[in-house]
Protein backbone atom coordinates (compact mmCIF):
# COMPACT_ATOMS: atom_id res chain seq x y z
CA UNK A 1 0.00 0.00 0.00
CA UNK A 2 2.82 2.34 0.95
CA UNK A 3 4.55 1.70 -2.35
CA UNK A 4 1.43 2.79 -4.21
CA UNK A 5 1.02 5.87 -2.04
CA UNK A 6 4.62 6.91 -2.44
CA UNK A 7 4.46 6.51 -6.21
CA UNK A 8 0.94 7.93 -6.62
CA UNK A 9 2.13 10.75 -8.90
CA UNK A 10 4.04 8.40 -11.21
CA UNK A 11 1.20 5.86 -11.41
CA UNK A 12 -1.42 8.55 -12.02
CA UNK A 13 0.71 10.02 -14.82
CA UNK A 14 1.10 6.72 -16.64
CA UNK A 15 -2.63 5.96 -16.25
CA UNK A 16 -3.65 9.38 -17.55
CA UNK A 17 -1.36 9.01 -20.56
CA UNK A 18 -2.63 5.49 -21.29
CA UNK A 19 -6.17 6.87 -21.20
CA UNK A 20 -5.11 9.37 -23.86
CA UNK A 21 -5.02 6.51 -26.37
CA UNK A 22 -8.79 7.04 -26.57
CA UNK A 23 -8.42 10.56 -27.98
CA UNK A 24 -7.73 9.60 -31.63
CA UNK A 25 -10.83 7.36 -31.60
CA UNK A 26 -13.17 9.99 -30.14
CA UNK A 27 -12.65 12.69 -32.73
CA UNK A 28 -11.41 13.28 -36.26
CA UNK A 29 -11.07 17.04 -35.93
CA UNK A 30 -7.70 17.94 -37.53
CA UNK A 31 -7.30 20.89 -35.12
CA UNK A 32 -7.59 18.57 -32.11
CA UNK A 33 -5.12 16.19 -33.72
CA UNK A 34 -2.62 18.96 -34.30
CA UNK A 35 -2.89 20.32 -30.74
CA UNK A 36 -2.79 16.82 -29.27
CA UNK A 37 0.39 16.02 -31.22
CA UNK A 38 2.04 19.19 -29.93
CA UNK A 39 0.93 18.37 -26.39
CA UNK A 40 2.42 14.86 -26.41
CA UNK A 41 5.71 16.11 -27.83
CA UNK A 42 5.72 18.81 -25.16
CA UNK A 43 5.02 16.30 -22.37
CA UNK A 44 7.86 14.03 -23.50
CA UNK A 45 10.30 16.95 -23.66
CA UNK A 46 9.07 18.35 -20.33
CA UNK A 47 9.81 15.00 -18.63
CA UNK A 48 13.43 15.63 -19.56
CA UNK A 49 13.42 18.98 -17.72
CA UNK A 50 11.52 17.42 -14.82
CA UNK A 51 14.03 14.63 -14.35
CA UNK A 52 16.92 17.09 -14.10
CA UNK A 53 14.98 19.36 -11.75
CA UNK A 54 14.65 16.42 -9.38
CA UNK A 55 18.33 17.03 -8.69
CA UNK A 56 17.85 20.81 -8.66
CA UNK A 57 19.57 21.15 -12.03
CA UNK A 58 17.89 23.46 -14.54
CA UNK A 59 18.64 22.40 -18.10
CA UNK A 60 18.27 24.34 -21.32
CA UNK A 61 19.72 21.42 -23.27
CA UNK A 62 16.41 19.74 -24.23
CA UNK A 63 16.46 20.99 -27.86
CA UNK A 64 20.06 19.77 -28.16
CA UNK A 65 19.09 16.16 -27.55
CA UNK A 66 15.77 16.55 -29.35
CA UNK A 67 17.85 17.49 -32.38
CA UNK A 68 20.14 14.49 -31.91
CA UNK A 69 17.15 12.15 -31.59
CA UNK A 70 15.21 13.73 -34.44
CA UNK A 71 18.11 13.80 -36.87
CA UNK A 72 19.12 10.25 -35.91
CA UNK A 73 15.66 9.01 -36.84
CA UNK A 74 15.60 11.03 -40.05
CA UNK A 75 19.01 9.75 -41.14
CA UNK A 76 18.12 6.17 -40.17
CA UNK A 77 14.98 6.42 -42.31
CA UNK A 78 16.60 8.12 -45.29
CA UNK A 79 19.94 6.33 -45.47
CA UNK A 80 19.34 3.12 -43.52
CA UNK A 81 15.76 2.48 -44.58
CA UNK A 82 14.75 1.82 -40.96
CA UNK A 83 10.99 2.34 -40.58
CA UNK A 84 9.98 0.09 -37.68
CA UNK A 85 8.65 2.38 -34.95
CA UNK A 86 10.07 0.27 -32.11
CA UNK A 87 13.54 0.39 -33.62
CA UNK A 88 13.25 4.13 -34.29
CA UNK A 89 12.03 4.86 -30.75
CA UNK A 90 14.92 2.86 -29.32
CA UNK A 91 17.39 4.67 -31.61
CA UNK A 92 16.01 8.07 -30.64
CA UNK A 93 16.59 7.20 -26.99
CA UNK A 94 19.94 5.43 -27.22
CA UNK A 95 21.90 7.73 -29.54
CA UNK A 96 21.28 10.96 -27.54
CA UNK A 97 21.94 9.02 -24.32
CA UNK A 98 25.28 7.79 -25.66
CA UNK A 99 26.28 11.31 -26.64
CA UNK A 100 25.14 12.63 -23.27
CA UNK A 101 27.33 10.18 -21.36
CA UNK A 102 30.77 11.73 -22.02
CA UNK A 103 29.24 15.22 -22.20
CA UNK A 104 27.54 14.72 -18.84
CA UNK A 105 30.71 13.49 -17.16
CA UNK A 106 32.37 16.74 -18.30
CA UNK A 107 29.68 19.35 -17.66
CA UNK A 108 28.20 17.91 -14.48
CA UNK A 109 31.36 18.92 -12.65
CA UNK A 110 29.80 22.37 -12.76
CA UNK A 111 27.27 23.36 -10.18
CA UNK A 112 24.15 25.51 -10.16
CA UNK A 113 24.39 28.59 -12.31
CA UNK A 114 27.45 27.39 -14.21
CA UNK A 115 25.66 24.22 -15.30
CA UNK A 116 22.68 26.27 -16.50
CA UNK A 117 24.96 28.51 -18.56
CA UNK A 118 26.70 25.53 -20.13
CA UNK A 119 23.42 23.98 -21.23
CA UNK A 120 22.42 27.33 -22.73
CA UNK A 121 25.71 27.50 -24.64
CA UNK A 122 25.09 23.92 -25.87
CA UNK A 123 21.84 24.95 -27.55
CA UNK A 124 23.67 27.69 -29.47
CA UNK A 125 26.42 25.25 -30.48
CA UNK A 126 23.79 22.79 -31.74
CA UNK A 127 22.27 25.38 -34.05
CA UNK A 128 25.68 26.28 -35.48
CA UNK A 129 26.66 22.63 -35.91
CA UNK A 130 23.40 21.89 -37.76
CA UNK A 131 24.05 24.74 -40.19
CA UNK A 132 27.74 23.89 -40.64
CA UNK A 133 27.28 20.18 -41.49
CA UNK A 134 25.15 20.19 -44.66
CA UNK A 135 26.40 16.76 -45.75
CA UNK A 136 25.01 15.00 -42.71
CA UNK A 137 22.09 17.18 -41.64
CA UNK A 138 21.15 19.00 -44.83
CA UNK A 139 22.28 22.35 -43.34
CA UNK A 140 19.68 25.10 -43.61
CA UNK A 141 17.46 22.93 -45.84
CA UNK A 142 17.08 20.23 -43.21
CA UNK A 143 16.16 16.66 -44.09
CA UNK A 144 12.93 15.76 -45.90
CA UNK A 145 11.41 12.73 -47.57
CA UNK A 146 11.73 10.16 -44.82
CA UNK A 147 9.74 6.95 -45.50
CA UNK A 148 6.64 6.61 -43.28
CA UNK A 149 7.18 4.70 -40.04
CA UNK A 150 5.72 1.22 -39.70
CA UNK A 151 4.30 -0.87 -36.85
CA UNK A 152 4.56 -4.64 -37.36
CA UNK A 153 4.89 -3.92 -41.10
CA UNK A 154 1.82 -1.65 -41.23
CA UNK A 155 2.42 1.87 -42.54
CA UNK A 156 1.65 4.65 -40.07
CA UNK A 157 0.93 7.40 -42.53
CA UNK A 158 -2.44 8.99 -41.72
CA UNK A 159 -3.12 11.58 -39.02
CA UNK A 160 -4.55 9.09 -36.56
CA UNK A 161 -1.55 6.78 -36.81
CA UNK A 162 0.89 9.66 -36.30
CA UNK A 163 -0.98 10.75 -33.17
CA UNK A 164 -1.13 7.17 -31.87
CA UNK A 165 2.61 6.88 -32.32
CA UNK A 166 3.17 10.18 -30.47
CA UNK A 167 1.04 8.90 -27.58
CA UNK A 168 2.92 5.60 -27.54
CA UNK A 169 6.29 7.39 -27.41
CA UNK A 170 5.00 9.59 -24.58
CA UNK A 171 3.79 6.59 -22.57
CA UNK A 172 7.17 4.91 -23.02
CA UNK A 173 8.90 8.11 -21.89
CA UNK A 174 6.59 8.34 -18.88
CA UNK A 175 7.34 4.77 -17.84
CA UNK A 176 11.09 5.37 -18.12
CA UNK A 177 10.82 8.60 -16.11
CA UNK A 178 8.63 6.94 -13.48
CA UNK A 179 10.97 3.98 -13.07
CA UNK A 180 14.10 6.12 -12.76
CA UNK A 181 12.63 8.72 -10.41
CA UNK A 182 10.87 6.25 -8.12
CA UNK A 183 13.78 3.79 -7.99
CA UNK A 184 16.25 6.57 -7.13
CA UNK A 185 13.77 8.79 -5.28
CA UNK A 186 15.82 9.11 -2.11
CA UNK A 187 19.14 9.59 -3.87
CA UNK A 188 17.73 12.33 -6.10
CA UNK A 189 16.01 13.96 -3.13
CA UNK A 190 19.25 13.91 -1.15
CA UNK A 191 21.06 15.67 -4.01
CA UNK A 192 18.24 18.19 -4.38
CA UNK A 193 18.14 19.02 -0.67
CA UNK A 194 21.83 19.24 0.11
CA UNK A 195 24.41 17.93 -2.30
CA UNK A 196 27.39 18.45 0.00
CA UNK A 197 25.74 16.61 2.86
CA UNK A 198 24.68 13.78 0.56
CA UNK A 199 28.24 13.44 -0.66
CA UNK A 200 29.72 13.46 2.83
CA UNK A 201 27.29 10.72 3.83
CA UNK A 202 28.74 8.52 1.11
CA UNK A 203 26.41 9.08 -1.85
CA UNK A 204 28.37 9.01 -5.11
CA UNK A 205 26.65 12.16 -6.34
CA UNK A 206 28.18 12.43 -9.79
CA UNK A 207 27.03 8.92 -10.70
CA UNK A 208 23.37 9.80 -10.14
CA UNK A 209 23.74 13.13 -11.84
CA UNK A 210 25.24 11.50 -14.93
CA UNK A 211 22.52 8.84 -14.87
CA UNK A 212 19.84 11.54 -14.71
CA UNK A 213 21.51 13.55 -17.48
CA UNK A 214 21.80 10.51 -19.77
CA UNK A 215 18.18 9.44 -19.28
CA UNK A 216 16.97 13.03 -19.66
CA UNK A 217 18.87 13.21 -22.96
CA UNK A 218 17.19 10.00 -24.12
CA UNK A 219 13.75 11.35 -23.22
CA UNK A 220 14.44 14.54 -25.16
CA UNK A 221 15.57 12.41 -28.09
CA UNK A 222 12.24 10.57 -28.06
CA UNK A 223 10.45 13.94 -28.15
CA UNK A 224 12.63 14.81 -31.13
CA UNK A 225 11.50 11.61 -32.88
CA UNK A 226 7.82 12.51 -32.34
CA UNK A 227 8.43 16.03 -33.60
CA UNK A 228 10.21 14.90 -36.76
CA UNK A 229 7.54 12.26 -37.35
CA UNK A 230 4.79 14.87 -37.07
CA UNK A 231 6.45 17.53 -39.25
CA UNK A 232 7.85 14.99 -41.77
CA UNK A 233 11.05 17.00 -41.74
CA UNK A 234 14.10 17.51 -39.53
CA UNK A 235 14.97 21.20 -39.62
CA UNK A 236 17.21 23.39 -37.41
CA UNK A 237 14.35 25.79 -36.60
CA UNK A 238 12.45 22.96 -34.86
CA UNK A 239 15.24 22.79 -32.29
CA UNK A 240 15.92 26.50 -31.74
CA UNK A 241 17.54 27.57 -28.50
CA UNK A 242 14.52 29.71 -27.63
CA UNK A 243 12.27 26.64 -27.64
CA UNK A 244 14.13 25.33 -24.57
CA UNK A 245 12.40 28.05 -22.57
CA UNK A 246 8.99 26.57 -23.45
CA UNK A 247 9.85 23.15 -22.02
CA UNK A 248 11.11 24.78 -18.83
CA UNK A 249 7.88 26.79 -18.63
CA UNK A 250 5.71 23.66 -19.07
CA UNK A 251 7.50 21.91 -16.24
CA UNK A 252 7.71 24.79 -13.77
CA UNK A 253 4.21 26.12 -14.33
CA UNK A 254 2.72 22.61 -14.16
CA UNK A 255 4.73 21.92 -11.04
CA UNK A 256 8.12 20.37 -10.42
CA UNK A 257 6.96 18.55 -7.29
CA UNK A 258 5.17 15.71 -9.09
CA UNK A 259 5.40 13.88 -12.38
CA UNK A 260 1.88 15.07 -13.12
CA UNK A 261 3.25 18.62 -13.19
CA UNK A 262 4.89 18.46 -16.64
CA UNK A 263 1.74 16.80 -18.04
CA UNK A 264 -0.62 19.42 -16.62
CA UNK A 265 1.71 22.25 -17.61
CA UNK A 266 2.14 21.00 -21.18
CA UNK A 267 -1.58 20.41 -21.74
CA UNK A 268 -2.52 23.81 -20.37
CA UNK A 269 0.21 25.95 -21.95
CA UNK A 270 0.17 24.29 -25.38
CA UNK A 271 -3.61 24.53 -25.45
CA UNK A 272 -3.48 28.19 -24.38
CA UNK A 273 -0.86 29.13 -26.96
CA UNK A 274 -3.06 27.50 -29.62
CA UNK A 275 -6.05 29.50 -28.39
CA UNK A 276 -4.63 32.70 -29.77
CA UNK A 277 -3.07 30.81 -32.63
CA UNK A 278 -2.91 33.74 -35.01
CA UNK A 279 -1.05 35.64 -32.31
CA UNK A 280 1.14 32.69 -31.35
CA UNK A 281 4.07 35.03 -30.90
CA UNK A 282 2.38 36.44 -27.80
CA UNK A 283 2.29 33.06 -26.04
CA UNK A 284 5.85 33.45 -24.75
CA UNK A 285 4.82 36.59 -22.88
CA UNK A 286 2.08 34.59 -21.19
CA UNK A 287 4.59 31.88 -20.29
CA UNK A 288 6.87 34.58 -18.87
CA UNK A 289 4.13 36.00 -16.65
CA UNK A 290 3.19 32.52 -15.43
CA UNK A 291 6.84 31.72 -14.61
CA UNK A 292 7.11 34.95 -12.59
CA UNK A 293 3.93 34.12 -10.67
CA UNK A 294 5.06 30.56 -9.94
CA UNK A 295 8.52 31.62 -8.77
CA UNK A 296 7.19 34.37 -6.50
CA UNK A 297 3.97 33.00 -5.01
CA UNK A 298 3.34 29.37 -5.98
CA UNK A 299 6.61 27.44 -5.87
CA UNK A 300 4.93 24.07 -6.47
CA UNK A 301 3.30 25.18 -9.72
CA UNK A 302 -0.28 24.17 -10.48
CA UNK A 303 -0.04 20.60 -9.18
CA UNK A 304 1.90 21.57 -6.06
CA UNK A 305 -0.51 24.37 -5.21
CA UNK A 306 -3.53 22.10 -5.65
CA UNK A 307 -1.88 19.41 -3.49
CA UNK A 308 -1.18 21.99 -0.77
CA UNK A 309 -4.76 23.18 -0.97
CA UNK A 310 -6.12 19.64 -0.58
CA UNK A 311 -3.79 18.95 2.35
CA UNK A 312 -4.83 22.21 3.98
CA UNK A 313 -8.56 21.44 3.57
CA UNK A 314 -8.07 17.94 4.97
CA UNK A 315 -6.31 19.28 8.02
CA UNK A 316 -8.91 21.97 8.47
CA UNK A 317 -11.75 19.45 8.32
CA UNK A 318 -9.97 17.16 10.76
CA UNK A 319 -9.41 20.00 13.20
CA UNK A 320 -13.06 20.87 12.94
CA UNK A 321 -13.97 17.28 13.78
CA UNK A 322 -11.55 17.16 16.68
CA UNK A 323 -12.87 20.32 18.23
CA UNK A 324 -16.54 19.32 18.10
CA UNK A 325 -15.82 15.79 19.25
CA UNK A 326 -13.27 16.33 21.99
CA UNK A 327 -13.66 19.80 23.39
CA UNK A 328 -16.59 20.64 25.60
CA UNK A 329 -18.54 23.74 24.61
CA UNK A 330 -17.30 25.67 27.62
CA UNK A 331 -13.66 25.29 26.56
CA UNK A 332 -14.54 26.64 23.15
CA UNK A 333 -16.23 29.71 24.49
CA UNK A 334 -13.20 30.49 26.65
CA UNK A 335 -11.05 30.84 23.55
CA UNK A 336 -13.53 32.98 21.74
Amino acid at each position, binding site marked *: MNVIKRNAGEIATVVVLLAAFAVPFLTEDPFVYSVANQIFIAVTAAFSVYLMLRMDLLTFAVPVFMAVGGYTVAIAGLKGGVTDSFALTALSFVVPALIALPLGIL*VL*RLKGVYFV*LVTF*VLTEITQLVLFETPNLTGGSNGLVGMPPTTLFGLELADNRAVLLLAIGVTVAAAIITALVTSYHRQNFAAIEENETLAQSLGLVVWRYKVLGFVVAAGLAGMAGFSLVNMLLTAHPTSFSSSSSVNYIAYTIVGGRVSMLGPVVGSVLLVWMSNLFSNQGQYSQGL*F*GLLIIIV*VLVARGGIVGTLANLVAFLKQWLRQDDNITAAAPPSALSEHT
Partner: protein
Amino acid sequence: MNEFISAGLIGVSLGAQYALLALGFTLIFGILGVVNFAHGGFYVAGGYIAYGFVSHLGVPYVIAVLLATLATGAIGYLFELFLVERIVEDHLATLMLTLGLYLTMSTGVLVAFGPESPQFQFPISGSLQIGKFHLPIENIVVLSICLLAIATVYLLMYKTDFGRALRALADDRQVAAAQGLRPRLLFPLAFGVACGLAGLTGALVTPILSLAPHVGDPVLATSFLIVILGGLGSIGGATIAAFLVGLVEAYSSVYLGGSKGALALFVLVLIVLVVRPSGLFGREVRGA
Protein backbone atom coordinates in the same frame (compact mmCIF):
# COMPACT_ATOMS: atom_id res chain seq x y z
CA MET B 1 46.87 44.74 -44.92
CA ASN B 2 44.15 47.33 -45.41
CA GLU B 3 41.52 44.67 -44.86
CA PHE B 4 43.32 43.45 -41.76
CA ILE B 5 43.29 46.88 -40.14
CA SER B 6 39.69 47.74 -40.99
CA ALA B 7 38.54 44.35 -39.64
CA GLY B 8 40.51 45.15 -36.50
CA LEU B 9 38.72 48.49 -36.14
CA ILE B 10 35.34 46.82 -36.51
CA GLY B 11 36.45 44.28 -33.92
CA VAL B 12 37.44 46.99 -31.45
CA SER B 13 34.15 48.84 -31.83
CA LEU B 14 32.21 45.56 -31.48
CA GLY B 15 34.33 44.80 -28.43
CA ALA B 16 33.47 48.14 -26.83
CA GLN B 17 29.74 47.48 -27.27
CA TYR B 18 30.09 43.97 -25.88
CA ALA B 19 32.11 45.29 -22.95
CA LEU B 20 29.29 47.66 -21.95
CA LEU B 21 26.77 44.82 -22.07
CA ALA B 22 28.98 42.33 -20.30
CA LEU B 23 29.92 44.82 -17.57
CA GLY B 24 26.28 45.18 -16.59
CA PHE B 25 25.76 41.44 -16.69
CA THR B 26 28.84 40.67 -14.64
CA LEU B 27 28.06 43.42 -12.09
CA ILE B 28 24.66 41.89 -11.39
CA PHE B 29 26.12 38.43 -11.01
CA GLY B 30 29.11 39.53 -8.97
CA ILE B 31 27.15 41.67 -6.55
CA LEU B 32 23.78 39.96 -6.27
CA GLY B 33 24.59 36.45 -7.45
CA VAL B 34 21.78 36.76 -9.99
CA VAL B 35 22.15 35.53 -13.58
CA ASN B 36 20.19 38.17 -15.43
CA PHE B 37 18.43 36.47 -18.34
CA ALA B 38 16.61 39.72 -18.97
CA HIS B 39 19.82 41.50 -19.98
CA GLY B 40 19.10 41.16 -23.70
CA GLY B 41 15.59 42.42 -22.96
CA PHE B 42 16.96 45.65 -21.49
CA TYR B 43 19.13 46.10 -24.59
CA VAL B 44 16.06 45.78 -26.82
CA ALA B 45 14.02 48.02 -24.51
CA GLY B 46 16.75 50.68 -24.67
CA GLY B 47 16.67 50.60 -28.47
CA TYR B 48 12.88 50.82 -28.69
CA ILE B 49 12.56 53.56 -26.05
CA ALA B 50 15.10 55.69 -27.91
CA TYR B 51 13.31 54.94 -31.20
CA GLY B 52 9.95 55.85 -29.66
CA PHE B 53 11.21 59.21 -28.40
CA VAL B 54 12.90 60.09 -31.69
CA SER B 55 10.20 59.02 -34.12
CA HIS B 56 6.97 59.61 -32.17
CA LEU B 57 7.86 62.62 -30.02
CA GLY B 58 10.57 64.22 -32.17
CA VAL B 59 13.11 64.29 -29.34
CA PRO B 60 16.72 64.79 -30.50
CA TYR B 61 18.65 61.52 -30.64
CA VAL B 62 21.17 62.47 -27.93
CA ILE B 63 18.44 63.22 -25.41
CA ALA B 64 16.52 60.11 -26.46
CA VAL B 65 19.59 57.98 -25.67
CA LEU B 66 19.84 59.57 -22.23
CA LEU B 67 16.14 59.04 -21.61
CA ALA B 68 16.39 55.40 -22.73
CA THR B 69 19.30 54.83 -20.35
CA LEU B 70 17.38 56.36 -17.44
CA ALA B 71 14.17 54.50 -18.28
CA THR B 72 15.81 51.06 -18.53
CA GLY B 73 17.73 51.82 -15.35
CA ALA B 74 14.47 52.70 -13.59
CA ILE B 75 12.78 49.50 -14.82
CA GLY B 76 15.74 47.48 -13.55
CA TYR B 77 15.67 49.32 -10.20
CA LEU B 78 11.97 48.66 -9.68
CA PHE B 79 12.24 45.05 -10.82
CA GLU B 80 15.00 44.36 -8.28
CA LEU B 81 13.27 46.30 -5.50
CA PHE B 82 9.87 44.64 -5.80
CA LEU B 83 10.54 41.18 -7.26
CA VAL B 84 14.13 39.94 -7.23
CA GLU B 85 14.79 41.23 -3.70
CA ARG B 86 12.25 38.82 -2.26
CA ILE B 87 14.13 35.72 -3.40
CA VAL B 88 17.63 37.11 -3.92
CA GLU B 89 19.27 34.24 -1.99
CA ASP B 90 17.97 31.54 -4.34
CA HIS B 91 20.10 31.45 -7.51
CA LEU B 92 17.85 29.13 -9.50
CA ALA B 93 14.68 31.04 -8.62
CA THR B 94 16.12 34.43 -9.56
CA LEU B 95 17.33 32.94 -12.82
CA MET B 96 13.83 31.76 -13.66
CA LEU B 97 12.38 35.08 -12.53
CA THR B 98 14.60 37.09 -14.88
CA LEU B 99 13.81 34.59 -17.64
CA GLY B 100 10.11 35.27 -17.06
CA LEU B 101 10.76 39.01 -17.17
CA TYR B 102 12.68 38.63 -20.44
CA LEU B 103 9.80 36.76 -22.11
CA THR B 104 7.32 39.33 -20.82
CA MET B 105 9.47 42.28 -21.94
CA SER B 106 10.08 41.02 -25.46
CA THR B 107 6.38 40.24 -25.89
CA GLY B 108 5.58 43.71 -24.55
CA VAL B 109 7.81 45.23 -27.24
CA LEU B 110 6.14 43.00 -29.84
CA VAL B 111 2.67 44.15 -28.79
CA ALA B 112 3.66 47.82 -28.68
CA PHE B 113 5.75 48.08 -31.85
CA GLY B 114 4.87 45.01 -33.96
CA PRO B 115 7.20 42.35 -35.32
CA GLU B 116 8.75 44.39 -38.17
CA SER B 117 11.98 46.23 -37.55
CA PRO B 118 11.33 49.98 -37.57
CA GLN B 119 13.29 52.58 -39.51
CA PHE B 120 15.76 53.80 -36.92
CA GLN B 121 18.75 55.62 -38.39
CA PHE B 122 21.82 56.97 -36.70
CA PRO B 123 21.62 60.78 -37.02
CA ILE B 124 25.13 61.25 -38.41
CA SER B 125 26.64 59.31 -41.26
CA GLY B 126 29.55 59.57 -43.63
CA SER B 127 33.12 58.53 -43.18
CA LEU B 128 36.33 59.93 -41.94
CA GLN B 129 39.47 59.48 -44.04
CA ILE B 130 42.76 58.94 -42.28
CA GLY B 131 45.52 58.05 -44.69
CA LYS B 132 44.19 55.16 -46.73
CA PHE B 133 41.46 54.15 -44.29
CA HIS B 134 37.79 55.04 -44.39
CA LEU B 135 36.25 55.00 -40.95
CA PRO B 136 32.46 55.32 -40.66
CA ILE B 137 31.77 58.27 -38.36
CA GLU B 138 28.92 56.58 -36.52
CA ASN B 139 31.21 53.77 -35.45
CA ILE B 140 33.74 56.22 -34.09
CA VAL B 141 31.05 58.10 -32.16
CA VAL B 142 29.66 54.89 -30.67
CA LEU B 143 33.14 53.64 -29.87
CA SER B 144 34.03 56.84 -28.01
CA ILE B 145 30.79 56.87 -26.04
CA CYS B 146 31.26 53.21 -25.12
CA LEU B 147 34.83 53.80 -23.98
CA LEU B 148 33.64 56.81 -21.96
CA ALA B 149 30.92 54.71 -20.35
CA ILE B 150 33.35 51.93 -19.54
CA ALA B 151 35.71 54.44 -17.92
CA THR B 152 32.77 55.82 -15.91
CA VAL B 153 31.89 52.34 -14.68
CA TYR B 154 35.49 51.83 -13.57
CA LEU B 155 35.54 55.18 -11.75
CA LEU B 156 32.20 54.36 -10.16
CA MET B 157 33.32 50.94 -8.97
CA TYR B 158 36.85 51.78 -7.83
CA LYS B 159 36.87 55.46 -6.85
CA THR B 160 33.54 56.09 -5.12
CA ASP B 161 32.06 54.94 -1.83
CA PHE B 162 29.12 53.49 -3.74
CA GLY B 163 31.45 51.27 -5.74
CA ARG B 164 33.45 50.25 -2.69
CA ALA B 165 30.23 49.33 -0.92
CA LEU B 166 29.10 47.22 -3.88
CA ARG B 167 32.44 45.45 -4.11
CA ALA B 168 32.36 44.78 -0.39
CA LEU B 169 28.90 43.25 -0.74
CA ALA B 170 30.11 41.14 -3.65
CA ASP B 171 33.06 39.95 -1.59
CA ASP B 172 31.20 38.92 1.53
CA ARG B 173 27.60 39.90 1.99
CA GLN B 174 27.37 38.98 5.68
CA VAL B 175 30.48 40.85 6.78
CA ALA B 176 29.63 43.86 4.63
CA ALA B 177 26.13 43.99 6.08
CA ALA B 178 27.54 43.68 9.60
CA GLN B 179 29.73 46.71 8.86
CA GLY B 180 26.61 48.73 8.18
CA LEU B 181 26.22 48.46 4.40
CA ARG B 182 22.61 48.00 3.43
CA PRO B 183 21.97 45.44 0.66
CA ARG B 184 18.30 46.45 0.60
CA LEU B 185 19.34 49.92 -0.53
CA LEU B 186 22.33 49.07 -2.69
CA PHE B 187 21.12 46.00 -4.61
CA PRO B 188 18.31 47.77 -6.48
CA LEU B 189 20.70 50.62 -7.33
CA ALA B 190 23.31 48.20 -8.68
CA PHE B 191 20.68 46.35 -10.70
CA GLY B 192 19.42 49.66 -12.04
CA VAL B 193 22.90 50.82 -13.08
CA ALA B 194 23.60 47.50 -14.83
CA CYS B 195 20.29 47.51 -16.70
CA GLY B 196 20.85 51.15 -17.61
CA LEU B 197 24.14 50.12 -19.22
CA ALA B 198 22.32 47.52 -21.31
CA GLY B 199 19.71 50.12 -22.25
CA LEU B 200 22.42 52.63 -23.21
CA THR B 201 24.10 50.04 -25.43
CA GLY B 202 20.78 49.21 -27.07
CA ALA B 203 19.96 52.86 -27.72
CA LEU B 204 23.42 53.49 -29.20
CA VAL B 205 23.92 50.35 -31.24
CA THR B 206 20.51 49.36 -32.62
CA PRO B 207 20.35 52.29 -35.08
CA ILE B 208 23.58 50.95 -36.65
CA LEU B 209 22.99 47.20 -36.42
CA SER B 210 19.27 46.45 -36.38
CA LEU B 211 16.24 46.87 -34.18
CA ALA B 212 13.64 44.11 -33.88
CA PRO B 213 11.86 42.50 -30.92
CA HIS B 214 14.06 39.40 -31.01
CA VAL B 215 17.54 40.99 -31.28
CA GLY B 216 17.97 40.39 -27.54
CA ASP B 217 18.61 36.66 -28.00
CA PRO B 218 22.05 36.88 -29.62
CA VAL B 219 22.93 39.72 -27.23
CA LEU B 220 22.18 37.46 -24.28
CA ALA B 221 24.21 34.62 -25.77
CA THR B 222 27.19 36.93 -26.43
CA SER B 223 27.01 38.35 -22.91
CA PHE B 224 27.11 34.79 -21.56
CA LEU B 225 30.13 33.98 -23.71
CA ILE B 226 32.03 37.01 -22.55
CA VAL B 227 31.36 36.74 -18.85
CA ILE B 228 32.18 33.02 -18.88
CA LEU B 229 35.45 33.71 -20.69
CA GLY B 230 36.30 36.59 -18.39
CA GLY B 231 35.13 34.89 -15.23
CA LEU B 232 31.61 35.40 -13.86
CA GLY B 233 31.55 38.50 -11.68
CA SER B 234 34.96 39.81 -12.71
CA ILE B 235 34.92 43.37 -14.09
CA GLY B 236 38.40 43.38 -15.62
CA GLY B 237 37.97 39.91 -17.09
CA ALA B 238 34.69 40.88 -18.77
CA THR B 239 36.30 43.93 -20.39
CA ILE B 240 39.26 42.02 -21.80
CA ALA B 241 37.10 39.09 -22.93
CA ALA B 242 34.66 41.48 -24.65
CA PHE B 243 37.39 42.94 -26.85
CA LEU B 244 38.73 39.45 -27.51
CA VAL B 245 35.31 38.20 -28.65
CA GLY B 246 34.75 41.34 -30.74
CA LEU B 247 38.07 40.88 -32.56
CA VAL B 248 37.55 37.14 -33.11
CA GLU B 249 34.09 37.80 -34.53
CA ALA B 250 35.32 40.54 -36.87
CA TYR B 251 38.32 38.58 -38.16
CA SER B 252 36.49 35.29 -38.56
CA SER B 253 33.69 36.91 -40.53
CA VAL B 254 36.28 38.42 -42.89
CA TYR B 255 38.64 35.47 -43.25
CA LEU B 256 36.54 32.36 -42.50
CA GLY B 257 33.03 33.48 -43.40
CA GLY B 258 29.80 31.90 -42.20
CA SER B 259 29.42 30.95 -38.58
CA LYS B 260 32.66 29.00 -38.16
CA GLY B 261 34.16 31.72 -35.98
CA ALA B 262 31.13 31.75 -33.73
CA LEU B 263 31.23 27.98 -33.50
CA ALA B 264 34.91 28.07 -32.53
CA LEU B 265 34.16 30.68 -29.86
CA PHE B 266 31.32 28.66 -28.36
CA VAL B 267 33.43 25.53 -28.23
CA LEU B 268 36.28 27.51 -26.66
CA VAL B 269 33.89 28.78 -24.01
CA LEU B 270 32.65 25.28 -23.33
CA ILE B 271 36.20 24.08 -22.80
CA VAL B 272 37.01 27.06 -20.58
CA LEU B 273 33.91 26.40 -18.48
CA VAL B 274 34.77 22.77 -17.95
CA VAL B 275 38.51 23.19 -17.39
CA ARG B 276 38.52 26.52 -15.61
CA PRO B 277 35.04 27.53 -14.40
CA SER B 278 36.42 30.76 -12.93
CA GLY B 279 37.23 32.01 -16.44
CA LEU B 280 40.44 32.84 -18.27
CA PHE B 281 41.34 35.84 -16.14
CA GLY B 282 39.13 35.36 -13.13
CA ARG B 283 39.33 33.97 -9.69
CA GLU B 284 36.39 32.20 -8.10
CA VAL B 285 34.31 35.23 -7.18
CA ARG B 286 31.23 33.45 -6.04
CA GLY B 287 30.74 29.77 -5.45
CA ALA B 288 27.33 29.62 -7.07
